[in-house]
């Protein structure tokens, strides 16, 4: 890599991207041995004595990770974090280091840097923390930044901001960057060169501008086709809707940011939409906008404060949360979750899992009949029967998600709710699953309610879309109308944030310093057997 160059490293999960940068950064864990050479400014790090290599790395390399929160010491302030390297490595006086730290924070676009220096990581949002990490790596003014999926955990708008900061730095400092991502579109938009990895090897290196044309390797082509804009779905003319949601509202009582007293937090506010039988509706919006909450209310996992959910004319908010109530509800709506590993019982084989799901609704079914139905379901999700006797541990992510979908279909529901069902999978698998879902919808006539960050995924599968922000619906309508001729500013912002060819990241909302209490939504307890929280 030469100075000021941005090189992208793309490839599917497990292809060795992270290991590569960790080897460069000297972070290989015990038991892993790197061979070969790593030259920084002509010095081979692999041959240098440990002490010396550490000094070279400290001054010549900066590294930013996917999960900034985990990479910051939770017990120390942002200031401690920023100043530490300046003092311990750079040999600056603490007072000087502090003002320098504030400057660096300002450089990455953090407002009120003095206050931030006194805060702890827990008080900052993910986007801010990622910027703090970037600012910290700048302390030693390194020529090279290693960035490992630094935006994967962020939503599109925040991703754009972080990328904008990096673009600025590149311009102002001539910073070179090794940029790792799953997202070819993003890589194409920000990198000069792109290296494609598969199974631990770089299979091909391409110039970013011309990658579509130049791609030779079949794997690269597969990656590229996976991100191609898909055909638009043709929505069937709406008959009587299978699902009518109206005036849905849900508030949580949370501790206020300053601790102490509790306050009401509106997660879902006056949400309403309809879903046609066999139709598909996408819900998009930034993180924390209330998408999951809406989905959970529809499936009965949460109780709405007010509003109605009509399924075939019956109000489902009134169905009791008894076992029989759950059984009735099960035939209406089923859900597929984001993390396919966590959403299966790790002790059950695929077959046991499906058998259980079926027998809930057909308690008197005989063994052979049950097994026949299991095979049917497996076939529907394109799983070979030999996988049926494996436990989740020995299935791939895509296969697990197929089992989860098959399980959801076991109840023969009217609606399938997909909460970020493909976000955790790598691109090629995503495409497979989305295609599968589309096929199932056509074949079985189940209606899809698909929640996603990913506008292209929504575009591929859905006929209607709802855009949410802060618990409210900003805009809704047929997919083509909303995504191609957005009316709401927020929809426009969302669309503009999605990396695409010729995309230049911009700082669009400089005032947003998001100090909301950031609750990791995926870690919240979900099952509440009593029904009330």
């Amino acid at each position, binding site marked *: 890599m030469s100075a000021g160059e941005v090189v992208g490293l793309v490839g599917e999960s497990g292809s060795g991207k992270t290991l590569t940068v960790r080897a460069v*950064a*000297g*972070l290989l*864990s*015990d038991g892993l041995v790197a061979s070969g050479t790593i030259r920084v400014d002509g010095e081979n790090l692999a041959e240098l004595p440990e002490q010396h290599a*550490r*000094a070279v*790395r*400290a*001054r010549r*390399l*900066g*590294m930013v*990770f996917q*999960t900034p929160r*985990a*990479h*910051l*010491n*939770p*017990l*120390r302030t942002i200031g*401690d974090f920023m100043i*530490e*390297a300046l003092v*311990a*490595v750079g040999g600056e006086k603490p007072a000087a280091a502090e003002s320098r730290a504030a400057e660096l924070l300002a450089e990455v676009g953090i407002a009120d840097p003095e206050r931030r220096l006194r805060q*702890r990581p*827990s008080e900052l949002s993910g986007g801010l923390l990622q910027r703090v*990490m970037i600012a*910290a*790596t700048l*302390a*030693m003014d390194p020529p090279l930044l290693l960035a490992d999926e630094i935006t994967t955990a962020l939503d599109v708008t925040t991703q754009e901001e972080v990328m904008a900061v990096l673009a600025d730095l590149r311009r102002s400092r001539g910073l070179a960057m090794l940029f790792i991502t799953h997202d070819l579109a993003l890589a194409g938009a920000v990198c000069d060169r792109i290296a494609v990895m598969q199974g631990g090897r770089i299979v091909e290196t391409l110039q970013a501008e011309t990658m579509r044309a130049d791609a030779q390797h079949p794997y690269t082509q597969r990656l590229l086709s996976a991100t191609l804009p898909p055909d638009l779905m043709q929505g069937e003319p709406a008959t009587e809707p299978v699902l009518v949601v109206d005036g849905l509202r849900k508030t949580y009582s949370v501790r206020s940011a*300053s*601790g*102490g007293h509790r306050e009401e937090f509106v997660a879902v506010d006056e949400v309403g939409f309809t879903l046609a039988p066999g139709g598909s509706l996408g819900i998009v919006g930034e993180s924390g906008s209330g998408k999951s909450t809406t989905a959970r209310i529809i499936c009965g996992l949460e109780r709405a404060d007010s509003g109605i959910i009509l399924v075939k004319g019956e109000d489902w908010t009134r169905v009791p949360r008894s076992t029989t109530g759950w059984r009735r509800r099960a035939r209406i709506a089923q859900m597929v979750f984001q993390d396919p590993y966590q959403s299966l019982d790790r002790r059950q084989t695929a077959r046991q899992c499906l058998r259980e799901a079926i027998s809930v609704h057909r308690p008197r079914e005989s063994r052979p009949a049950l097994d026949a139905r299991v095979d049917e379901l497996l076939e529907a999700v394109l799983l070979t029967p030999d996988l049926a006797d494996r436990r989740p541990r020995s299935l791939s992510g895509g296969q697990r998600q197929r089992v989860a979908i098959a399980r959801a279909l076991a109840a023969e529901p009217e609606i399938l709710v997909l909460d970020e069902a493909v976000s955790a999978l790598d691109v090629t698998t995503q495409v497979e699953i989305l295609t599968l879902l589309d096929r199932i919808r056509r074949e079985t006539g189940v209606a899809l309610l698909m929640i996603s960050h990913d506008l292209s995924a929504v575009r591929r599968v859905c006929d209607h879309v709802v855009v949410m922000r802060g618990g409210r619906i900003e805009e809704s309508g047929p997919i083509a109308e909303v995504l191609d001729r957005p009316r709401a500013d927020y929809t426009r912002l969302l669309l503009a944030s999605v990396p695409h060819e010729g995309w230049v990241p911009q700082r669009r909302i400089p005032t947003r310093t998001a100090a909301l209490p950031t609750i990791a939504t995926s870690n919240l307890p979900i099952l509440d057997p009593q029904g009330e929280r």
Partner: protein
Amino acid sequence: MGARTVRRLLSKIGALLLTLFLSSVVIFSAVLLTPGDPVVALAGGVRPTPEMIDAIREQYQLDQPVWVQYLSWVGSVLTGDLGTSFVYKTEVIDLIAPRFGITFLLVIYTLVLIVVFGVGSGILAAVRRGRVEQAVLVGTSLGVAMPTFVVAIVLIWIFGRVLGWFPVYGPGEGLLDNLYHLTLPAVSLAVLYIAYISRITRGAVVAQLSSEHVETARVRGIPPSRIFRRHVFLNASPQLLSVAGTTIASLFAVAAIAEHAFGLGGIGVLLTEAAARKDLPVVQTLSLMLVALFVVLNAMVDVVIAIIDPDSARPRRDA
């Protein structure tokens, strides 16, 4: 400490006070749960004379409703009137006061040993993987399987009788002599805890060493010694502190074993002797004291942890 931390601490301390209150109810109800007449229970296995019966009724207000009895019991304990032992025929306070010092010294001594050797060996095992770690792991496996009293007997045999390096009886006189006399008792008490704390320390330090924020510090070129102090040890310390809190409290009770073996007249021995003599008033008072100690120590530990880690809404306490 921010207002938020203070508020969180206050509610924590409130919860601890509630714990204290509830456990005092549990301890108080020992009298009611003892089979037979509460007067006999309170007389402590002695057949009470009519004067004693009157005195007990008077002291414990046995004619009053239960809650009045409880309140007056707690009230008198709070005002320093710990009641009378009918077995020892003295004020409970006179039984406890002269014995407390030696137990306290023993616990402190033991604690120093535990911290130095337990935390020390735990860190060593975490930092020096390989042979040192193996040695520490084998040692601690043995250590957690060693009954304290067996260690005491072995120590008496080796150091007291065969080598004659350390005294094996009594607390001695004067602080230095006290410490000399308490060496073997403290070691015998400490062995099990050293092993226990060593394992916890090793676990906590290893977890921190492989944590991502330590990785970041390494990439940034922070010197290893500094990383260890400011990132690894600091972050491991809340867990160690909370274990230390419960350890000290239980040491006061377990001290009985060493006191028994080495003939130290401390409160541990008093507690077990009183139990053997069914002297409920003494046992109750001492139990309450130990529980209060536990609660206070934990409150202190929570404060320290809250200073280190203001986000510790729920300090991890158990191991």
